[in-house]
């Protein structure tokens, strides 16, 4: 399956990209597994970033959240608006 991954703020800068569409191998079906898989693809900063947050289809989600074909998954640092 294929998912769209987005990166924001300091994470976007550290990775040098704002997003990518990736084809996932079988078994990568949660946010946590996706994060680990992306680290294996060279996105090292995803392993070391502190308190990283995630959203699935624009809703906050934890590492156990399911990832499905066509989803939009975003990784970002803790928010600092307001």
């Amino acid at each position: 399956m294929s998912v769209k991954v987005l990166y924001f703020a300091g994470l976007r800068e550290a990775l040098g990209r704002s997003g990518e569409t990736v084809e996932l191998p079988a078994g990568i079906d949660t946010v946590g597994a996706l994060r680990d898989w992306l680290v294996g693809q060279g996105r090292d900063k995803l392993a070391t970033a502190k308190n990283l947050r995630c959203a699935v289809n624009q809703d906050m989600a934890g590492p156990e959240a399911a990832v499905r074909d066509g989803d939009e998954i975003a990784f970002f640092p803790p928010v600092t608006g307001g």
Partner: protein
Amino acid sequence: MSVRVQEADFDLNAELAALRAGDARIGAVVSFVGLVRDINDGAGVSEMTLEHYPGMTEKALEAIEAEARARWDIYGTLVIHRIGPLKPCDQIVLVAVTSAHRGEAFAACEFIMDYLKTRAPFWKRETTPEGARWVDARETDDSAAERWGLGYESSR
């Protein structure tokens, strides 16, 4: 109920007047305006840029407003959050709530602001004499949100 994300500044008086216009049920209007300060974490700040996640930002703010309306008997809500480059003294955010009595409006306004600080996908990057840096999240913001007991889920 209304949410706006914009680069342009806002006129507080005009926004509050529009929010309560013609509604004689309203006995209280509470508003909060957040401003850019010229110092943060011991360094001078000459400029700040706000990045956000288009789409999710509006969705998150609407969810926060809906939660406030479910908790308190309030009539109107307005959230305006600016993005892009800002200078010290500039307005960043407006939260306004109307209700029959002040108690509900005060509580709902504070709730919306506390949740916005931890759930709406905005990030501040500030320019200091030592260069540009991303602003770190504050633990006090997390604890301010947690006291409302909505079970803030993080991916920590």
